[in-house]
Every structure is written in structure tokens, then in C-alpha cells.
């Protein structure tokens, strides 16, 4: 359970190289910015609070930062409004939150409930977070893997098999005691 959604969001965004500032004006919120993105994170106590109050809070923030948006030019199009709550959403509320996200007017919105852990929060912020995990697959020594799994086979026969020797020769070696 996350004690403070904004603080945890701040930590995650900073980890992702965003500049993050906490603003106490209007409802407490985070301002974050990268070379391409700008955005806000607002935390609500309940899903209902979020659904009822998000537009008013958003309007207040847009009004407050209007000069900055104008100055941002093209960057203003890359704005994000992240609305989060730790409360679990009913099915009805889940779809209401979905509708907020799919409404592409004004600003890109991320509206998520049930943010209980850092992973939940990370999943919510995923659209703006960098790819955190790229697997590094090391070369596979399949012969060594086979050796591990065929220890009961006489070594010389197994090595001949693995060294691309004639299979007839390998078969003969396999007959040895």
C-alpha cells in the first residue's frame, strides 16, 4: 500500500529523468516535464472524488498554467494529466475512468484506480515511462546444456556427438560398456 501517491509518483518520474515539482496550489499536484512531455499528477482519495472532481481540478490547473502552455508551443500538445486513486473501482467506475482516458480533447489523460503498489503506479505511468527492461539474451551454449542433461552418457560418445562426428561412429561408441 502506497502511503502517498504523489510522493511515489515523484520518485518514479524522477527515476525516469523527468523534472518534477510539487505544487500546493489548487489541489496538491505534481508538475513533470521532459524534453518532449509536460504533465500533471493529481491524486484523489476515492474513485468518486476522481470522477466528480477531476474536470474542475483540471480546469483550475489549465487556467493556472495557461501562460506556460502558450510558451510551450508544440510541446503543449504532449501534455499529460495523470489522475490516480488507490481505491478499487467498481465495474461501472472502471468504465467511467476508461472514458476519461479515451477522451482525447484538451490533454492526454491517464485515469487509474486501485493503485496499491509501486508496480500499480508504474503501470499507470507506463505511457510516459521509458522502457525499463530490455532483455539481454546471452549466447546459448546448447552443447553445454546437453552435457548437463546427459551425464549418464559415456563422455567420449557424447563429445563425438557434440563435435559433429559421423553418427554411425557415435552409435558404435554408445554401445560400449
Amino acid at each position, binding site marked *: 500500500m502506497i502511503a502517498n501517491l504523489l510522493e511515489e509518483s515523484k520518485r518514479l518520474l524522477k527515476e525516469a529523468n523527468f523534472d518534477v515539482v510539487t505544487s500546493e496550489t489548487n489541489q496538491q499536484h505534481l508538475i513533470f516535464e521532459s524534453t*518532449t512531455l509536460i504533465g500533471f499528477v493529481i491524486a484523489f482519495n476515492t474513485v468518486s472524488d476522481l470522477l466528480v472532481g477531476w474536470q474542475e481540478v483540471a480546469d483550475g490547473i489549465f487556467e493556472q498554467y495557461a501562460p506556460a502552455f502558450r510558451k510551450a508551443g*508544440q510541446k503543449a500538445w504532449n501534455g499529460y494529466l495523470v489522475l490516480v486513486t488507490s481505491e478499487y473501482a467498481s465495474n461501472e467506475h472502471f468504465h467511467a475512468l476508461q472514458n476519461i482516458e479515451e477522451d482525447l480533447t484538451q490533454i492526454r489523460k491517464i485515469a487509474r484506480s486501485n493503485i496499491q503498489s509501486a508496480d500499480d503506479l508504474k503501470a499507470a505511468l507506463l505511457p510516459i515511462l521509458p522502457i525499463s527492461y530490455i532483455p539481454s539474451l546471452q549466447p546459448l551454449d546448447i552443447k553445454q*546444456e546437453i552435457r548437463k542433461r546427459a551425464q549418464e552418457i559415456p563422455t567420449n560418445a557424447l563429445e563425438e556427438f557434440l563435435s559433429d562426428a559421423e553418427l554411425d561412429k557415435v552409435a558404435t561408441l554408445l554401445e560400449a560398456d
Partner: protein
Amino acid sequence: MMNIAYISLCGFRGYKNEIRIELASGFNIISGRNGVGKSTLCDAVEYALTGNLNKYGDKKSAGESVDQYIWWRGKEPAEENYIEVAFRDSSDNLHVIRRSKGEKEEPAILNKLAGLMYDDSNAPSHPFIQLCKSSIIRDEFISALSLDLDETKRFQLLREALGSTDSELETTRASELKKICANRINDVQRRHEAARTALKEAVFKIEQIRSRMVDDSSINKAVKSLQDVLSSNIPVDELLVKAREYVGQRKLYIENFDLFIRELECLLENRSKLSDLKAKEAPFKQELEDVENQIEETNNALSSLVEQMRIAQPEESVRILSNIIADGEKLGLQDGHCPLCNANHDYNSFIRGVSAVRSRLNDLSSQVQSFSALRVEQEQKLLIFRERKTLKNREFQELQHQIMVLVKSMERLSSLRIRLELDENIPAEEAKKILLVERERLEQAEGSLRILDTLSMNSLLESATFERNEADKKVTELETALSKARKADMRAKVIYDASRRAANEALDDRLDLIGPLLSDFYRRLRPHASWRDIEYKIRGDVKRFLSLEVGDGLNPQFIFSSGQRRATGLAFLLSIYLSTSWSRLKTIILDDPVQHIDDFRALHLAELLAALHMSGHQIICAVEDEALANLLCRRLPVQPQTKGVHIELGEAPNGCLGVLRRKEIKSLPSSVLTNFDC
């Protein structure tokens, strides 16, 4: 790490004129309406690396294939036909692949590029083809090679991306080894079965020989018996020789004796018949002579008659006289003179004369008839006599034959009697008694000989025992060989199992490693509002499948819309691209990836491409929609070291395709919000 620096082409696909597109190392958004050659840029990269266009597969139409449509086919020929793709390494050196129309040989630079473009130790077979498959995401492939792909092919795609195909080679090799060992077992089993059959036969033969062998007392009795028969005390080995000669001779003797008795009995039966036959012989001869005499007499009579008729010629006289009478009567008396002899006649004397002549004619006619009847009679008699002679002759010959048969029989009998050294008049009953005694002696000799013949069974038994021992040895050898073959087969199965498990487990381990990435990309593209996570599962043991599940074990293939399936497929293909760890080409090329995808999910794609770009990947994305191109240009980050460009393709005023506009994307202002002072 490598990316693409520029693409230059001329007379390739839909481009007649030369076009050179300088690409930014960051992102490149290429826009333009349908048919302006956006996909051709993907084709150029693929053709440069592989010399082929995989998107058409082996498709043919009306006898033509894609090979005939690689180069410009417009009305006016292009000045040149080539493509040139330059790859940039991490030190900014360019490596240019150029292919021209008609060139058969692979560009030499490909060998040098191989080491730069991929990790050879971990790459699958045909790495450039695989590299294109994972790095060039075409509109056609998004649906065909992603969610709509069957599970086996999807697994294949994943395995090739993960570069663990070497394990397949080992598994195939192990499978072949298993087959060889199994064949060896079959071969040894066949030979073992044959050896066992030979052993059984050898054992059976020994039993047969043993059953024919007898004990010593029987042998002694047989020797004594033979000595009695032969009336001789010669040693056993000589006795056997003599006995065999004796048996041979006696068999012939008894055969002749049998014949003698048959002849004797036959002769006794016919002895009286012979004298009867001989008694008939003289009368038969007399009868035959009588008949011959009769024939001769009749012949003489007939000849005499014929002679008389020849001399008298009564038939001719009758004819002439008849004519004279007819002529005389016809002419009648001529002036008191006969018209034939001119003698003087009156009518009456003439008539009398004619009547006298007619009477004479009648006498002659009677004489002719009498001669003819007599001749017929003689001829019939002759015929009868001759038939009688033939019959008598036949009967006489039969008689002589019967006599001859009996005489010959007697001669044979005499000859046999002499040969058998019998008395001249030995009675048949006496002869039969002698024959009976001879038969008993022969049987006694043969029986004794059979018993003594078993003495030679020892060598046969010895030979059969040798054969049995050899067969037994062979069976034992083959038992050992079979045991070894089974051991090898079992071990080959262990190797096969180890190879398969190594391959499967290695792949499972790798999938575990890339699993989070697959889930991450799915979450970012969010194809479905409710099912925000997807699970990738490898199933099957021998034939393997990669299945996708959402929610409670649901298959997204059957519940997602086409747009959602495309988004899911795109997430899969992008994760495949990023999982291709053996590749050193850090360029992802997307050709029209947003067809059928709504704005909301297009935005997700832009976000994902931005994240990819931030991870150091060069993005080349072709889109038709200008607004989407602008969104991508805005959303993808421009960084000092990696620029971004927006290239607009279209038709130039001269009607040829080319670059209409190339715009470098400027960096967005920084800290506009975070430094804003409320």
C-alpha cells in the same frame, strides 16, 4: 550498434528517377498518400540485405513473380537501376550495400557487414533474412505474422528472434542418431532370430540322429545275422561292404525270380494252348492253299472267257448285222435285186432272206448275253475267293503270332531259369518256396545292415553337434550385440531427450526473460480496455506452440476486434524486434502500422515508439495520415545527438515520385512548466 544513414535508389519498384533519403539517427516519419513509394523504402532495405522481397513469398501470377517487378517497368526506361543503402556504425562510419539490376553476385560488403550487423555466435541461420523479418514491420505482416498467425508459426517466429535455432540442429541430429540406433537393433534382432532358428534346426537334427542310433547288443545281433546270411565271419567293416553287395545282388535276383514265377505260371496255363495252336497251323495252311487254287482257277476261266469274246467279237457282229438289216429293210428290194448283195430275189425270198439274217442276229445277241452273264459270275466268284483268302491270311497270322508269343515266353523262362540256376522242370510251387526263403534272407540282411549303418551316425552326430555349437556361439554373440544395441538405443534416447529438453528449457528460460517485455509492450499499446495484461505460453513437447491468453484463459484471437488484434500483434512484433538480441541493427522500420487502429491506440503506438527511441533505437515509420505524422513528430523526442525528420513523399511536378519536403524536427522548449512561476 548500427542504424541506417541513407537510402538511395533509381529505377527501383515505382521510382524511375534517382532519389536519396538521408535518415536521421533518431526518428524518421515518412508520410504520403497511397502509392508514393513509402513501402519501397522498406523494400530497398530488405532487397539490399537479402536480394529478395520476402513480403510476396513465392507468389506467382500469370507466370510472373515479384522478381520481374523489382526494377522500374514504366514506359520510359530509368537512367539507372540500383539501390544503395548505407548503414552507419557507432563510429559514424558508413557501410554501403549497392545492388544493381542484373547483378547476380552477392555484394562483397555483406560479409564485412555480417560481423557488424549481428552476433554470429548467437545468430540463427539466414541472419539477414531473420533480421529483416524482425526489424521491418510491414502492414501485411502485422496481421499475418502476429495474432492471426497459427501458434506453431508464432512459436517459430519467436524462436528465430531469440536466436536459439542451433538447438534445433542438435535435436535433429539426436533424432537421427536415435533412428540409427533403432535400425541397428532391428538389424541385430533379425540376425539373432536367424541364428536362433539355425540353432533350433541343429538341435532337432541331433535329436533325429540320436533317435536312429541303437544300443550295442542290437549291433552284435545284426553282425551275427549278417554273418549267417553271408555265411562268413569276416570283420564288421568288410561285412558291411559284402552285405551291401549281397543286398544289391539279391534284390536283382528276387526281381528276376518274381518274373520267372510269373512267366512260369503263365506258361503252365498256355502250354496246352500252344499244341492246340500248332495243330491248327497245317489245316490252316491247307485251307489257304485251297482258296489260292480256287482264285487261280477262277482267274483262268475268266481269262479264257475274255479271250473267247475278244476273238469272236459277237457284240461288233450284232451291231453290224443289225445295221445291215435295218438298211436292207429300209431300202427294200431294188428291181428284184437285194440292195445289199445285188442277188436276184423276189419279194418273198427277200423277206425270207431278211428273216434268216434277223434270226442269225438274235442268235448272236443271245450269245453275247450268255458271255456277259458268265463273266459276271466268274468275277463275283473271284471276289469271294479273294475275301476268303484275306480272312484266312489274317487268321493264320494271328495264329502264328500266338504261337510266337508262347514260344518267346518259353525262351525267356528258359533263360531266366538258367540265370537263376534252377532245375529245368522245377515246379511253380517249389520255385515260390525258394523265392520266399530268398526274400526272408534279404529282409534279414537289410534289417541288420540298417542297424549297422547307425555306426556311421557317430560322425553325423559329431558334425551336427559342431553345427549346434557354432549356432549356439552365434546366438550368444548376437545376444551380446543385441544387448549393446539396446544400450546404445537407450543412450541415444537419453541424448535426444537431453537435446530436446536443453532446447526447450533454454527457450523457456529465454521466454521467461523476455516475458516482462512482451507484457510491457502489450500494456503500453493497450489493445483492450478490460484485459490489460496478456500471457504468453509455450505449449507442447515435440511440436511446440506459442499461445496467447487474456483474462481467465481467453484466446484474444477470437475475442478481439481486427484493430485490437492488430494492436496486440504490433506489441508482439515490437517485442520480438527488441528481443532479437543477436542483432546489432538498432533500427525499427514500420510500414503503415496504424491501419484499422483508432486514435486512442495510435497515440499508444506513438508513446511506445517514443519509449523505443529513448532506448536508443532509430525509428523509421511510414504513415499515410498527415495528422498522425505530425503527432509522431511532436511526440517522439528530439535529442541533441539523435535528430528527427519528417519526410513527405509524393509526385513531383514532372510526374515522378520523389521527396516533396524534408523537415528537421526542432527540439521542444525545455522547463516551460517546471520553471513556471505561478
